[in-house]
């Protein structure tokens, strides 16, 4: 019997023989020129895509008050019958199967750049995470004014506070701050840009990884443990935008949180999450729906373009403060 090295060499020879008459097209350069022109067009038209995507996410988020109800379809496809509670997928899976497939799919999370959008009342966070290189970047957006009015300054220099909570007029959504983080929890390099005050800084952080009260649904180990300790149920099949999903509900081991999780029916990767802590009430008040936070996920290939999202470059006219 051949040794591995001999056998491998023989395979190499056979492969060379089998493809010896595979040749590249002689007009390859011309084809490349043509593809480059198409790509330029694609980039131009792609500028409109984030606007459409934001509209889709906005619609999804507006449905958060009733997360167990079907997700409204994006406007562009509102004519399509995708508001039904059940997916078109004919397969019926049980919760154990979906849980196993989801944990398995999450085991491949480091092969993606994970994009998430965490939406709250007055703004949202966009985050790109590359688990393979332990990097993430987030951009915070807000509608709150830069300096909410806290009181009225009097002639003698004193400040009169308003009787009730200050009225805050929401403005247009704008980017407030960005952070790019590299390294494990115990050894992180952080770059921060403050877009409003036009400064940036870098600093080093070394803290043990905190114990998060609510598990991260993109972490296979965390999710596996949460499922093992808590209670997972399958709510049903639903559409999130145009994606067929399995809707799961995970209750913490001491009912300290509730996570509504929608996983892609094909890839089993999380598409959307709504998490809420226990408010201490009874019945509906235990997990009041309005307190939930909505996060949508997109799993992007680790292309150069997507990895570039993790890079944060301060503008030249911003002041470095540290």
């Amino acid at each position, binding site marked *: 019997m051949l040794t591995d090295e001999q056998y491998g060499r*023989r*395979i190499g020879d056979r492969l060379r023989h089998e*493809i010896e*008459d*595979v040749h*590249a097209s002689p007009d390859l350069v011309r084809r490349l020129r043509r593809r480059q022109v198409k790509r330029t067009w694609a980039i131009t038209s792609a500028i409109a895509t984030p606007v459409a995507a934001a509209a889709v996410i906005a619609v999804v988020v507006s449905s958060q008050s009733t997360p167990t109800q079907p997700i409204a379809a994006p406007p562009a496809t509102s004519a399509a019958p995708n508001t039904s509670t059940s997916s078109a997928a004919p397969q019926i899976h049980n919760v154990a199967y979906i849980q196993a497939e989801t944990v398995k799919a999450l085991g491949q999370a480091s092969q993606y750049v994970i994009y998430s959008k965490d939406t709250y009342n007055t703004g949202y966070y966009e985050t790109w995470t590359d688990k393979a290189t332990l990097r993430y970047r987030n951009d915070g957006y807000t509608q709150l004014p830069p300096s909410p009015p806290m009181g009225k300054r009097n002639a003698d220099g004193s400040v009169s506070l308003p009787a009730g909570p200050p009225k805050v007029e929401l403005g247009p959504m704008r980017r407030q701050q960005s952070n790019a983080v590299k390294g494990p929890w115990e050894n992180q390099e952080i770059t921060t840009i403050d877009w409003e005050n036009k400064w940036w800084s870098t600093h080093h952080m070394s803290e043990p990884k905190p114990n998060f009260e609510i598990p991260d649904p993109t972490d296979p180990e965390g999710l596996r443990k949460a499922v093992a300790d808590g209670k997972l149920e399958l709510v049903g099949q639903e559409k999130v935008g145009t994606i067929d999903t399995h809707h799961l509900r995970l209750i913490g081991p001491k009912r300290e949180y509730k996570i509504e999780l929608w996983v892609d029916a094909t890839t089993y990767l999380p598409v959307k999450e709504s998490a809420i802590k226990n408010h201490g009430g009874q019945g509906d008040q235990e997990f009041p729906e309005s307190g939930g936070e909505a996060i949508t996920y997109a799993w992007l290939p680790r292309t150069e373009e997507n990895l570039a999202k993790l890079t944060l470059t301060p503008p030249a006219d911003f002041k470095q403060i540290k």
Partner: protein
Amino acid sequence: MRVDPSFETFVENSSTALLRTAYLLTGDRGHAEDLLQTALLRTARHWSRARDSPAAYARAVLLNLSRDRIRTLFRRPKEAPMPPDVDAIHAVDAGYEQIAERRVMLHALARLPIRQRQVIVLRFYEDMTVEQTAELLGFTPGTVKSHTSRALARLRELLAGHDSMEEVPRAHR
């Protein structure tokens, strides 16, 4: 697209070798050509960085793209197999059985997981050392060795009984 003359020369000299590598990585001629064009476009876009060693740069892009393609395939329904002669290798004028026989190794290679396939292609088709393969794939040499060992064991299974694959070369008897 303005093409640097040195890039054109590179394409003329290296595209066939890169296409063959892409073909081995994907097992599909059409996808291989698509992958090659994408890899060359990326190489062209980063020509200032790639020009010192463009073939190595393009090969690294190919490897990443082939992995991306596998991921994409997992996310959509499986493609229906093409009729056997659609992507027949050019200039083959023998009958289908002869073509099929010629592709025994390609078919076996295509059945390996992508990491094992990459290692086999780099180690034994591209004749790279364990260390070179490890560097290109971002593995440790130990990981390359274990992937190689598993891949060869699987290939022995798949090719069991095929002609003279297991015959010891005369010089080694």
